[in-house]
């Protein structure tokens, strides 16, 4: 992963977005490591959101989203350990999820796969402040998110001690770098 600057439209969701909403169980017959099925997973990303969400994350018949950034609330990615969840988001073209907090396995799977950056917000509830379609610019070097329209800058939390794993490109490259595996 090397996108230290991420720019684009945000897709805003609420608290406790669980893995069934990110990728409903009926699509778990798709195997993420098969390229064709990987692509298909992207087309279903976030299709389990309740119908009150008017905007669709990925439009019918498409494989990619127009929103590279998801803004969530508390406990994003709770529920199952399915790696299909970060993979579906990554396959759809999501670069980062910014949320107040993440569920553990989802967070870990983001890092292990290198599919998306899971970044926490320091204080404010960005999902109340931003609307789907707003444009932002994220710097993972400065740990900042800037809202383009207003110019307002929000502090993001440093990703912490897993940074080394992410920077190496996931658990396998990290272990190779450390001489753990060949």
């Amino acid at each position, binding site marked *: 992963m090397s996108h230290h600057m991420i720019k684009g439209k945000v897709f805003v969701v609420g608290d406790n977005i*669980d893995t069934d909403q990110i990728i409903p169980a009926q699509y778990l017959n798709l195997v*993420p*490591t*098969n390229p064709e099925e990987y692509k298909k997973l992207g087309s279903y990303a976030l299709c389990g959101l309740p119908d009150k969400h008017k905007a669709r994350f990925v439009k019918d018949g498409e494989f990619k989203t127009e929103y590279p950034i998801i803004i969530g609330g508390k406990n994003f990615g709770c529920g199952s350990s399915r790696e299909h969840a970060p993979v579906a988001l990554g396959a759809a073209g999501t670069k980062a999820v910014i949320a107040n*907090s993440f*569920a553990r396995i989802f967070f870990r*799977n983001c890092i292990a796969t290198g599919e998306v950056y899971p970044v926490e917000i320091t204080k404010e509830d960005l999902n109340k402040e931003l609307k789907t379609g707003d444009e932002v610019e994220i710097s993972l070097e400065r740990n900042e998110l800037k809202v383009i329209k207003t110019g307002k800058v929000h502090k993001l939390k440093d990703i912490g001690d897993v940074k080394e794993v992410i920077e190496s490109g996931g658990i396998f490259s990290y272990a190779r770098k450390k001489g753990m595996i060949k």
Partner: protein
Amino acid sequence: MTITEKILAKASGKKDADPGDNIWVSADILMTHDVCGPGTIGVFKREFGEDAKVWDREKVVIIPDHYIFTADEMCHRNVDTLRKFVKEQGIKYFYDPGTPSYSGVCHVTLPEKGHCRPGEVLFGTDSHTCTHGALGEFATGIGNTDAGFVMGTGKLLIKVPASMKFIIDGELPAGVTAKDIILRIIGDIGVDGATYCAMEFAGSTIESLSVEERMTICNMAIEAGGKNGIIAPDEKTIAYVKSKTKKPFECFKSDKDAKYLSVKQYDASKFVPVVAMPFSPDNVKNAADMKDFKIDRVYIGSCTGGKIEDFKMAAAVLAGRKVKVKTFIVPATVEVEKAISTEKIGGKTLVQIFEEAGCDKPAPPSCAACLGGPVDTFGRCNNDEICVSTTNRNFPGRMGSKGSQTILASAMTAAASAVRGKITDPRDV
């Protein structure tokens, strides 16, 4: 040190393991199933090569259970991928659908077949792997990439979790079960109340519970965000494990001066039957307070509520009564399936009791509608049904269609609710 820290220290070959430490631990068992197995195998082959061998063919346990009884071709293909892999690798423990070795739900199969032992480290590509902490081991769910790593190396880099202690003392009132205890705790701390933490359960109430009931508690640690649930092994645990396996094991328990992030105490004698209303496991209400809430169906099954004891409790409520709504019975495993046709209450087998009460014929063991799955899955909510279920999750769409609603309850509360067609405290039937 806590029991979790002791097990992780041992598994990493260190004297201590402090919360926050990132350590490499050795796995004793890696479990995978039909939903995450093919992807895990994909990662394993991509990273270690087409001809690579798993680190230990006796320690990789493969249990297809999620999408078994479906016409979906992709699901069949996924099980075939597992079969091929098992053959090529010489994997010793594989519970193959359609053969006498088939078992059913992975988390009930693992302890039944002796794969869970105190003091060990068990990784599984399923979030409810935390179930097995009930046997005094460190067990946690991981993704395909991490599992592919374990498959090749037998090791994984993990962060030692801080422990939260839940002490539950006192006698549980009649009608109140392990499911009510864990729902109550989740209601208390919230669905992210234990994120990244070990949830350690102790106290006289926990000691009084059977091993199966303890599994129900640890099963739902993930519903509070926990990394693992754990209960120190005692004579009951040891007797249970020895009845399933001859392998030696080591029992650990927390030191008196172990450090906890928090300690919470509960008086079990004040507990009542509860339900978690849609759409979150922490939306917990007393069952009695929801008694006018109409429901469309009841589902008794899954790794949380589809074990022998769950069906015994359900049958005790249903004996001599009739259900008002469609009631699905899904034994978790073949062993549970056998038991419900041999175990008796008042001279009748559990299966007879369910039949006379008007429940649907028991389905073959699998995860079935617990997680929705393909549209032809047994018991799946395909419309806007409201279902009282003994499963563990009720986020939108969990049991099928987005418009359906799941209400989590114990087997007793589920059975009582089936009798009235409304949410019901089992003491009120």
